[in-house]
């Protein structure tokens, strides 16, 4: 009998598995103008990205600066309109959103910025900062607002609450500021959080604290969290899936455990080799680093974007044809010609 119950739950879950967010061939290009008038080209900050995100999962997006990960975040937030391609939120095309839809969407997506101090208005108190989103989204009852501010501050563990309410951001430490930013993102009870390098400005000890806080919020509210980072060592503790981005594209998608055990794309492998864990053996060895710089996004290289730096390049193929997605195993896929024979397209 217990098997039946499990079966039923699974069928129910499968039926429910409409992706919260789905991107199809997403492009965000920025136009460059010469003399403010003539078109000089496009910066292809996001150039053909596909993915699906489901309720209750955390996805890390890793990559170097300039690989388009922040543009992806801002496109998801609706701050940039995609040049091409579509974004679906709960199955609904975002390009067809009305003004009201957009407002509702923005209320259901929280944003956690990189620099907490820069993200908080310096002339507003903690109470005002948290009250503003409620006022904008029509919570008119004062007591209700009070209650929600209380509960969100409890959730991010800024206590005693009464002490914090009249404070200004500069009176808080870096960790407390970042918790306030998280509280602000959480106060409208969002379904999804976009965290753009939420801990890179913080100290190591505080970093762990904030990541654990985000993790507990996610478990409690069954949130989708998009965690953008360049620090590979934190993703293990934080996410179910990892996307690696390079040159405005996703190059590898995998479940965290599979990726950590066996990174497939040469770029992911390079990131792995460049990350140092505290170990006295590091002193004696040099790091293997691919030569060169990330590609220009105005004029990306033909074929695979990583080929000019790749040690495993297949001449005549990698530099001419764009690699399609090859699926390896159940939970890993890679955009690389090396896996042509092993994976199914």
């Amino acid at each position, binding site marked *: 009998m217990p098997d039946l119950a499990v079966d039923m739950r699974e069928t129910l879950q499968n039926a429910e598995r409409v992706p919260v967010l789905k991107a199809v061939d997403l492009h965000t290009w920025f136009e460059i103008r010469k003399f403010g008038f003539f078109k000089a080209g496009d910066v292809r900050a996001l150039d053909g990205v596909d993915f699906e995100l489901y309720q209750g999962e955390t996805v890390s997006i890793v990559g170097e600066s300039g690989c388009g990960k922040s543009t992806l975040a801002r496109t998801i937030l609706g701050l940039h309109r995609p040049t091409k391609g579509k974004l679906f939120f709960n199955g609904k095309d975002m390009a067809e959103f009305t003004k009201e839809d957009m407002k509702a969407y923005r209320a259901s997506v929280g944003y956690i910025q990189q620099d907490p101090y820069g993200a908080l208005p310096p002339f507003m108190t903690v109470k005002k900062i948290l009250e503003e989103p409620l006022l904008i989204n029509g919570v008119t009852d004062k007591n209700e607002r009070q209650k929600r501010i209380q509960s969100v501050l409890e959730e991010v563990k800024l206590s005693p609450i009464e002490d914090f309410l009249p404070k200004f951001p500069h009176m808080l430490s870096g960790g407390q500021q970042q918790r306030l930013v998280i509280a602000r993102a959480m106060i409208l009870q969002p379904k999804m959080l976009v965290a753009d390098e939420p801990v890179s400005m913080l100290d190591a000890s505080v970093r762990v604290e904030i*990541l654990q806080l985000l993790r507990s919020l996610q478990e409690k509210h069954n949130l989708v969290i998009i965690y953008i980072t360049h620090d590979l*060592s934190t993703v293990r*503790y934080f996410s179910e899936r990892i996307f690696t981005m390079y040159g405005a594209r996703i190059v590898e998608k995998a479940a965290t455990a599979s990726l950590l055990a066996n990174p497939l794309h040469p770029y992911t492998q390079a990131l792995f080799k*460049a990350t140092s864990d*505290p*170990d006295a053996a*590091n002193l004696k060895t040099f*790091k293997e680093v691919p030569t060169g710089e990330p590609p220009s996004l105005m004029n990306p290289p033909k074929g695979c974007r990583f080929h000019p730096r790749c040690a495993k390049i297949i001449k005549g193929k990698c530099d001419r044809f764009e690699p399609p997605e090859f699926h390896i195993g159940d939970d890993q896929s890679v955009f690389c010609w090396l896996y042509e024979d092993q994976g199914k397209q």
Partner: protein
Amino acid sequence: MNKMLLEVNNLKLYFRTKKGPVQAVDDVSFKLERGKTLAVVGESGCGKTSLSKAILRLLPRNIMEYSGEIILDGEDIMKYPEDRFRREIRWKKIAMVPQAAMNSLNPVLRILDQIIEPLLIHNRDMNRDQGLARVKEMFRIVGLPEDFLYRYPFELSGGMRQRATIAMALVTNPELVILDEPSSALDLLTQANLMNVLKRIKHEFGTTFILITHDIGTASELADEIAVMYAGEMVEKCHAEYFYTDARHPYSRKLMSSVPTLREDKELVFIPGQPPSLINPPTGCRFAERCDKRFAKCSEHPPTFDLEHDQQVQCWLYTDREEVKHA
């Protein structure tokens, strides 16, 4: 030639503020051998950068107390008057790569003019051609193409600018180079590249480095010894090989367990609470409030104890060991 290049004894640096004296560096003592690298780690605001500025005597105006001994190659350079310090020590024997070094280049001067300047100032008999040859050699060492000498800083990427500042610090062939967070603003691959460059310089020229960082992972690439700072004090110093696995001070242990690792799956622990204010720090152990091993004695200030493997720890847990007395 002394084996010991740098010896710092009871160094204090207090700043005067409206609220009272800030004890940014309080009674710090350590020794550093020639050719070795000391990594100073700790949370922000623990006095790491103040320590480096105190060694190079780059001080702001609101100094309240600046005392102790800094013995470089057998001579106490704290006794030097400012003029002599500037001529003989700063950038000649001790150079520095400042924090966010990539933004510390002058935007309106070409890279060459900036790098050659300390060289020509400190070597009066050197002409510009000799200087240029030396700068070119430095560029080769840090791995920059020569024609970048004639460019302006904005024409270089972040990693290249960082290398240029390192070239600038090394150009006068100093004995000690202080690196203040050299790689924290850089991308992962650029960072790994830079650590390779520093490692090569260390091996080829035997330069002594003090590496200030909060990233213990990167520190392990270069450090022979690790010093942990907490609230203005140096609470532990030991050889790197023992530190990662066998740190002794409760703070160092917690710091290590809060470092996320890529290859090893361990449970991360954060340190609850905040470091004390440096304006009126506790009279006892400064970490006591956050420490889970504290006991009655911790309300008194702990002395430094000597442990095996040349490990020095400022903590009452090791009372049975021998105390270190500084000169």
